[in-house]
């Protein structure tokens, strides 16, 4: 499965420029997906650009790659996710950080501020967080293909504390690597490519329990079902 990482240094530089109002010009590399005449320059390469920029196509065609959908017994692919810490600082965290040597419950929602996600899925896990942790779960994290800013706002809107970590799979890289993409681009709902709804339990990064829904339906990926499986 494809692993995708960005260096923490280049990420934090890029985001710092975006978050803070400054008058200095940005050193982000402007790489666009449309063809441009040669007079439009890309910024000079920076020495600490170690890896190619991640590209994300909002109109991704149905995957014809060899990424198969994740299943029980698989090791979770590594990826870099982002979130806002309680200090208000934008941070990155990898799947490895979340899962290595730990019992981790990961659940994904198609979109922040959408009904099932906001009214049932996330609140369900917040409610059951204590019980899950009493059963030995170390980390509970909610993943969505939304950016970290939106995830933070959603977290505050639903008044979620530290029981559940809300992390952003901003470029959809982790979701794609899991084979859990939900392509809603041609649907009028206006969501683009998102994640299918799922919940999983990983022990030291290996999937032990997996409840992967079709699309955004909500049948077995809730907190109660995860509790029963533990």
């Amino acid at each position, binding site marked *: 499965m494809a692993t995708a990482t960005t260096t923490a240094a280049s990420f934090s530089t890029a985001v710092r420029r*975006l978050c803070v109002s400054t008058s200095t010009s940005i050193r982000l590399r402007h790489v666009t997906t449309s063809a441009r005449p040669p007079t439009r320059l890309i910024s000079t390469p920076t020495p600490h650009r170690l890896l190619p920029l991640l590209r994300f196509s909002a109109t991704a065609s149905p995957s014809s790659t060899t990424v198969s959908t994740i299943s029980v017994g698989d090791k979770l692919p590594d990826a870099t996710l982002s979130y806002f810490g309680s200090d208000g600082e934008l941070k990155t965290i990898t799947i490895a950080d979340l899962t290595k040597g730990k019992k981790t419950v990961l659940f994904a929602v198609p979109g922040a501020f959408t009904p099932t996600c906001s009214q049932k899925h996330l609140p369900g896990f917040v409610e059951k967080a204590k019980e899950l942790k009493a059963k030995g779960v170390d980390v509970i994290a909610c993943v969505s293909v939304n950016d970290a800013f939106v995830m933070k706002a959603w977290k505050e809107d639903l008044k979620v504390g530290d029981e559940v970590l809300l992390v952003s799979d901003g470029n959809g890289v982790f979701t794609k690597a899991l084979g859990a993409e939900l392509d809603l681009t041609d649907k009028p709902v206006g969501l683009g490519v998102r994640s299918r709804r799922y919940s999983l339990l990983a022990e030291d990064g290996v999937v032990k329990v997996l409840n992967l829904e079709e699309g955004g339906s909500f049948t077995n990926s809730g907190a109660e079902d995860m509790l029963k499986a533990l």
Partner: protein
Amino acid sequence: MASALVRGARRFPPAMWGRGFAKVAAGDDIVAAAPDVALQKARSWDEGVSSNFSTTPLKDLFQGKKVVIFGLPGAYTGVCSAQHVPSYQKNIDKFKAKGVNSVICVAVNDPYSMNAWAEKLQAKDAIEFYGDFDGKFHKSLELDIDLSAALLGPRSHRWSAYVEDGKIKALNVEKAPSEFKVSGAEVILDQI
């Protein structure tokens, strides 16, 4: 600052100075530049359901109207929330006094996030918020920018425009999305 100017000069030939990116310029027709493109009005999911997730074609927004429209990289982000939207909120009366029919804010976000953000900023009565969820509007105008390095994916530059009956009268694009020099309300007020 001098070094930034030098860097900028190296990056952009003088002919493009102050224009930044963009396929369109003053005098172009914004609807013709982005044919078959529609935007999604910021709304809650329930509103979406009851409206059958309707989209708004560009001509409905621009034809026969005087519109001030501004685009920004993302809802809930720093400059966008703290400076860009408030600058338009504060000056809404001045825009109305100059005959502007609507002030529109657009970003590459889904309409639900845009809606929640607009409500948080209490800006919905002054400004109309629209989501360019698949980035097609911005791509057509070549105002898109790849912010994957910041884990944000494809987004929009920071820009503003004054459009009269679909014709762009003024267009301001920041050289970098973190800047907020030419796309604020005060600048475009002078251009109307």
